């Protein structure tokens, strides 16, 4: 019993490279023929599984795998085109290579090989395990015991197997595939299956950052950042003010006001946005009212003037943004200890000083993580732009984007309208880098401030 316990805590294994030098011949054979150590020690089924896996991988490699790798590097050599058929005496359309599929199969092959390397390591670890047990003179676990352990101390492996496989094929594979596209010429001139596309290295990044696309990228990036800051700050600021007003002593019907404002959260944002889109349109409710009441003579260009449209978007966004902030702020205000306020009053602070020095910093502290999230959310706020202005008004200086398009809606246009998948992929990667860097810095700063409430 004690020996077993000692073994189970035996965490420091000999490295697999050193093992090759020290181990017996059976263990060494496992480096070449998977499962041989298991066979030699009567773990036949386990050994068989390893062996079959090795044989299938080798079979796959020599029949399909190598070709897939080769195709991944070339991305196809035969374009679709007319080829003269001697027997028929005419040219017929011959299917060429489909770069997109070749890239996908290539990626899949990489994953299959990575999986195999992982299994190969497991095979070696199993061989090492057997060797170690034999060195210590402990009885080897039977297959039954091995299987039983999968429902006991190795339950995590059993539970994670299916989700991990799903993540691998449905998240990681598409992700690498998308990233890979950023380094190809997969755009509207190179659409498979008609045309081939090829690897172009960092050309697309160069194009976006300092090439033709820079004239669109930087203005859109600037507006994206302005929008994200303005939307986040304005929603936060007015949300806090609203919460303070509703929470103030002497305000009657607090519950009524809270409910009214929370109702706007109960309506799906896209419905609100579509209604707003109608209301502010050229012949819409707002303009009609303004003209009928004589306040303006013509339609106000809510969505047709670039600058006007930007303000409209930010203002309309308040409708959606304020209630959320108000709700959280109300919670913070109601939780703040009355003693703090009284202590500050006794020290002679007036209401503004109390708000500035005590209440507001605490609200900011609690809200900081959610503000970071809101900022990132606004950088990627597809709904508001797409549903409200659709990126418009059109801007002839931009490629594939309107005056109010954010990076994310531009990306949408690049994939669905202009079919520049490589550019879209570059934009996606840049958005990711932007969001990730900002979040990391911001969260780090927030957690460094050290205050817990």
């Amino acid at each position, binding site marked *: 019993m004690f020996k077993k316990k000692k073994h189970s805590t035996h965490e420091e294994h000999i490295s697999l490279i050193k093992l090759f030098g020290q181990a017996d011949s059976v263990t060494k054979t496992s480096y070449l023929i998977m499962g041989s150590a298991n066979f030699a020690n009567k773990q036949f089924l386990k050994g068989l599984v390893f062996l079959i896996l090795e044989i299938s991988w080798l079979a796959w490699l020599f029949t399909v795998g190598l070709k897939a790798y080769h195709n991944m590097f070339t991305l196809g050599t035969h374009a679709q085109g007319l080829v003269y058929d001697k027997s028929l005496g005419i040219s017929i359309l011959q299917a060429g290579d489909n770069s997109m599929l070749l890239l996908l199969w290539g990626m899949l092959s990489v994953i299959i090989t990575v999986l195999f390397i992982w299994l190969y390591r497991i095979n070696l670890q199993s061989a090492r395990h057997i060797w170690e047990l034999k060195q210590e003179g402990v009885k080897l676990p039977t297959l039954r015991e091995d299987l039983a352990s999968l429902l006991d101390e190795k339950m995590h492996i059993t539970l994670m197997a299916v989700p991990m496989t799903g993540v691998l094929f449905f998240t990681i594979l598409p992700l690498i595939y998308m990233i890979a596209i950023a380094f190809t010429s997969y755009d509207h001139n190179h659409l498979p299956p008609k045309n081939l596309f090829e690897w172009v290295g960092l050309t697309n990044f160069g194009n976006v950052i300092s090439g033709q696309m820079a004239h669109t990228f930087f203005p859109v990036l600037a507006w994206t950042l302005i929008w994200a800051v303005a939307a986040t700050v304005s929603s936060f600021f007015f949300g806090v003010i609203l919460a303070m007003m509703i929470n103030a002593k002497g305000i009657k019907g607090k519950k009524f006001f809270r409910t009214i404002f929370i109702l706007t959260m109960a309506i799906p944002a896209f419905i609100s946005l579509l209604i707003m889109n109608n209301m502010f349109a050229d012949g819409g409710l707002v303009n009609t009212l303004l003209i009928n009441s004589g306040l303006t003579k013509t339609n106000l260009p809510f969505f047709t003037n670039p600058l006007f449209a930007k303000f409209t978007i930010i203002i309309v966004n308040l409708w959606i943004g304020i209630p959320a902030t108000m709700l959280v702020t109300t919670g913070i205000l109601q939780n703040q200890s009355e*003693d*703090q306020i*009284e202590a500050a*009053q*006794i*020290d002679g602070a007036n209401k503004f*000083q109390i708000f500035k020095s005590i209440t507001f910093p605490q609200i900011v502290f609690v809200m900081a993580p959610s503000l970071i999230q809101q900022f990132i959310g606004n950088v990627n706020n597809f709904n508001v732009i797409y549903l409200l202005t659709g990126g418009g008004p059109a801007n002839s200086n931009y490629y594939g984007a309107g005056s109010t398009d954010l990076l994310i809606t531009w990306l949408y246009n690049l994939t669905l309208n202009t079919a520049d998948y490589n550019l879209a992929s570059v934009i996606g990667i840049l958005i990711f880098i932007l969001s990730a860097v900002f979040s990391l810095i911001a969260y780090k700063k927030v957690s460094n401030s*050290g205050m*817990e*409430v």
Partner: protein
Amino acid sequence: MQPVKLCAFLVTIDLLIKSEGWELTNISTPIIEFKNVGLSYGDDEVLKNIDLELEAGKFYTLLGPSGSGKTTILNLISGQLTVTHGDILFEGNIINDVPVEKRHMNTVFQDYGLFPNMTVFENVAFGPSIKGMSKKDIKTKVTEMLTLVKLNQYADREITELSGGQRQRVAIARALANDPEVLLLDEPLSALDYKLRKEMQYELREIQQRLGITFVFVTHDQEEALAMSDWIFVMNDGVIQQNGSPEDIYDEPINHFVADFIGESNILDGIMKTDYLVHFTGKDFENVDAGMRPNERVEIVLRPEDLDLTAIENGKLIVTIADQSFRGDYYEITAIDDDGNEWQVQATNKSKIDERVGLTFDPEDIHIMRFNESENDFDARLESYEGEEDAEK
């Protein structure tokens, strides 16, 4: 004495007072005075006609159970509540309507009331900076206050990095940084553990004596009150039950409530047969109280520590030991006499359960409480005994 000489004498006294810098007003005018103060919420009378006077530079304690009105009095002094009737005076001036920040007072809260978004230094500097003090003066002031509460090493710490005891010290420093003439403390130690509480009791007392300002301390812990105060107000049901020095209140409780609330007590019904002779548990005992009506019904208080267990033949009463528990420096013994009365006794020696022993006490340990005696009558009666004692000497 001739008129001229009298005049010269008075002038001399006057000169003496002026040259010594004595201020007659401080001697005669209390720093805080309540005149017939009451506070009601609708029909709910929280405070009933409170009269009290606080002298400058003393440590006062308002002691009472929850809901007795002690914190209400504190909030009236600080200005967070306003009176329903009566007047509150500060150095002789009515301050009923003076706002909190102009009252020359500051409060230490039970939950500290510290600002979690500021460091220790910033917390203490808050009041002075609001008052527009220069940065250099603020630094001097804060350093002085943090040294006073022994936290000068912690100036740059976040509030959340401090222990409960340290937070309470910061709260005290922050209140004192505003140079209050009266410091109000609302159960400041009740969140601390026993040992820390003892330590802070001692330190608070020390701080009060060093600064020489008036402290008004609210607590429900009678031990704390006895240990720290110059003067205690015992409160119950919105009424001051008794006020006096800790010794007075412990030795001479005015009524059942005070006797029961302060310390451990054996309280029995009895009859004052004549002066110096009291009857309870079916026997007559000599005592030292007088001035009551013959055969007046009274309550008898005997403190557990004044009782001794002895041999049966030496006992004034015979009791059976029912229970005992070890309390470190003594055994707390529950004994039952032949009338079925339960007696709490603090004994140094261990006893045997069910053993019959004698119970003895001295005549001066018997304290008599009359029913419905007002505080003034009670004081007068006590003074009359002292007069007699002086006469005997």
